[in-house]
């Protein structure tokens, strides 16, 4: 594996993220502080970037495309929301409105204990591991792969969406959960809280980047790439790829869950829309646009697409879908390796060379 030099993109990116986080923290309260809107937007973008990394880990480095990563994102989001609601209820006694319209006097029994953050976090981890573990185990064991796996994960997230839309499940139904007022005892929505959440998201992003970089650079990472390139080959050399895939899949699910936990307090709502198959597909689009199999690419893709989306949804809402679809087509046809290719792209190039580059592009980290 290549060494990480001081000028390699990933080091620059991590440095930059930490710099932004420090600047935001340092300038908070001064007149140079970012507006709340911008701070909040940066925080959300960071959460999306973490989500993109989680998918890149499994798709870019293991070759397994999940079109259901929204499920784990939502898991984290929902459990975080349960903590926030229960916590807010403890302090301000605001009764969540879904309890009201279902005519329930009290929280359902499975809400017990969610006022303690460590418990909520533990439940989030356990549930994510259970869901991803069981689904991953049966799928990988019966060797469901490629597009089949993609379709099945899509169906899975769709099923989850249909279930969460039901109001009698006790998770807020279609409206989801909102009205969070307190986080760790601090009121939400203040400048300080917004900045703190954004800075925390950025730091988590930096940590996740660092951790994933370490992982893919390790011996284990080499086995991941080997699995992606030719799984059967690796199995016939004595490696239980089932275990390897399961470990990475669960890890990826955990990172997506983490992203969900960061996202919800910043956006202030969670509802089944995050489980819609389109959102899960869009995560793959971020990664593909940035360049899959590059951690930096995934981050850049997520930041770019979402920043443009935030911008255009107020500036030129009509053209956003056209721009997004154009970007995708551009990426799959011209920059098969995502925007990471731009650096290497030469404009005068024979067709054959391009095709070769395309083939290499599918696999090079």
């Amino acid at each position: 594996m290549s060494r990480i030099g001081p000028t390699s993109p990933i080091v620059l990116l991590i440095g930059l993220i930490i710099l932004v986080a420090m600047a935001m923290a340092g300038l908070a309260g001064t007149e140079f502080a970012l507006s709340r809107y911008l701070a909040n937007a940066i925080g959300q973008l960071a959460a999306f970037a973490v989500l993109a990394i989680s998918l890149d880990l499994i798709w870019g480095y293991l070759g397994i495309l999940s079109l259901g990563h929204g499920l784990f994102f939502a898991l984290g989001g929902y459990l975080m929301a349960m903590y926030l609601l229960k916590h807010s209820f403890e302090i301000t006694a605001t009764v969540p409105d879904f309890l009201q319209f279902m005519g329930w006097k009290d929280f359902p029994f499975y809400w017990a204990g969610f006022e303690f953050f460590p418990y909520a976090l533990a439940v989030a981890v356990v549930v994510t591991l259970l869901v991803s573990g069981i689904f991953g185990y049966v799928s990988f064991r019966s060797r469901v792969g490629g597009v089949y796996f993609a379709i099945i994960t899509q169906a899975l997230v769709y099923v989850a969406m249909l279930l969460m839309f039901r109001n009698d499940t006790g998770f807020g139904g279609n409206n989801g959960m909102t009205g969070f007022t307190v986080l760790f005892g601090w009121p939400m929505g203040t400048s300080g809280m917004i900045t703190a959440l954004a800075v925390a998201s950025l730091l988590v992003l930096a940590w996740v980047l660092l951790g994933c970089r370490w992982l893919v650079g390790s011996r284990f990472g080499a086995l991941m790439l080997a699995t992606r390139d030719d799984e059967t080959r690796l199995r016939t050399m004595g490696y239980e790829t089932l275990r390897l895939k399961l470990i990475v899949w669960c890890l990826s699910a955990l990172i997506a869950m983490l992203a969900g936990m960061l996202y919800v307090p910043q956006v202030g709502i969670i509802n089944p829309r995050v489980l819609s198959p389109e959102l899960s597909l869009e995560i793959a689009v971020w990664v593909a646009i940035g360049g899959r199999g590059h951690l930096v690419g995934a981050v850049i893709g997520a930041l770019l697409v979402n920043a443009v989306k935030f911008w255009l949804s107020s500036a030129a809402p009509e053209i956003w879908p056209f721009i997004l679809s154009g970007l995708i087509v551009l990426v799959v046809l011209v920059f098969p390796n995502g925007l990471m290719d731009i650096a290497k792209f030469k404009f005068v190039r024979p067709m054959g060379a391009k095709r070769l580059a395309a083939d290499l592009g599918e696999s090079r980290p």
Partner: protein
Amino acid sequence: MKLARSALLLAGLAGALLLAPPARAQAQALDRAGLVQELCGDAGAMGRAGATLAATAAAGSDEDRAWAAPLARAAIDRKLGCDETGAVLEEGGLDAVTRTPRAATGTPRAPLLSLRNRPVFELGDAAFALRGAPDPARRAAALKTLERRPALIPERLLDRAAEAETDAGLKEQIDTLAQTAALNAADPAARIRAIGRVAENPSRRALTRISALARDPAYEANPEFRAAVDAATARIERGIAIGDALATLYNGLSFASILFMAAIGLAIIFGLMGVINLAQGELIMIGAYVTWLVQQGLRAVAPGLLDWYLILAIPVAFLVTAAIGIALEASLLRHLYKRPLMSLLATWAVSLFLMNLVRVVFGTQNLQFETPFYVTGGVPVIGDFIFTWNRMFAIAFAALTLALTWALVRRTPFGLNIRAVTQNRDMAACIGIPTRRVDMMAFGLGSGLAGLAGLALSPIYSVNPQMGQNFIIDAFMVVVLGGVGTIAGTVVAALGIGQINVLIEPLWGAVAAKVIVLLMIIAFLQWRPEGLFAVKGRRK
């Protein structure tokens, strides 16, 4: 069940009929001005007017009937203009009472029938038509309207209509209805005959009527009557059971035909190229839009053929979507065959693009389709099973598509090429099959089939830019469950999913049905990852 009998009739309406005793109409000449005044009155007055009209239809003089008949129709169509001096029949501009031409004064008000009054007027209108309409078809239609509410038919109306009826077939039908209507008559023989007649058309409604008779004093007193009631009840219950079973089958089949239409194009493309075409839903949507355009074109060019637009649009919808598919293949997917996951994203982009393009060009509203007679309404078969024509159209269309696709793939050189490339691309290329061309044509075929699906769905679902999204996940499930690229697998999977869905739905609701079916498919694929009809082969 105490109130069971009244379920059939609008209780208040029966009261209204009693309030306007037929004797009044018979004994004295019709108070024409009073009637028109009531027609322009409030809901209660209109109800009385409706009852008077119905009674007139049954027992009024020929003259009165001729005078009153247009009033019932005008009230239903809101063609009665009420003004200070009375009312004007808007058709022809005649005064409602005198039938002399006059214009309405001021802004006339067209009274609106309330829900309670509407059936009274419809009944009256039908009663007039049954006795007075020159066209037998019109009389037959009127009889159908009367059949809906046998308990409200004014006394002697049917007898008089039968006397005057010249058409033998229609006369018999009127007699049958008269017998059926005698369920609560005084004559026990007539009642027993009526019970038999009612049981001939089993339905829950009929069951309610008959089982109410078990509480009739005659049930205890008259063993013959009791036997007739019991036999009829058993017969109706059997009919309902058969009808329910048929309805479930039919509903399952109709859902399956929709699934099949949405999935077959996808199955061919997926089987041949391993390309997941996420734009398939949008091709379905475009097929529906093309159908609409054909309809609009016919409206402008050949209004006489308008009813046949669904048939005439078949080649157009197929060719347009096939052309789009071919263009898509040649410009985009051709470069992505080695990268199936990228082609998935690319087709998603295409789907996004097409959906928004249609939105910008046509707007977001639902398109308006004419409903030709052959996709309108339905025929009650047995029990509560209604054979609806729009569903039948979809089923027949799916069956025809299946037959043609099967013939194309199995019986033509092009089909042979498709099968060869599906099974072994490299080998097919070696023996000189132009695989690229086959890909392109097959993609066109798959897209064209999606277009046909859009056409078949347009009489059933709302057509708008979003409609394609509803089918895509279901269609994928059919394809992966069936096993890649097998027509038989697609058929079996569609039938299975459709039927299971329809079976679960009444038990736990539509959401649960969908969830359960999806989970079953996911579980099934864990067990057989290659689907129902997997083609096995050596690792390539």
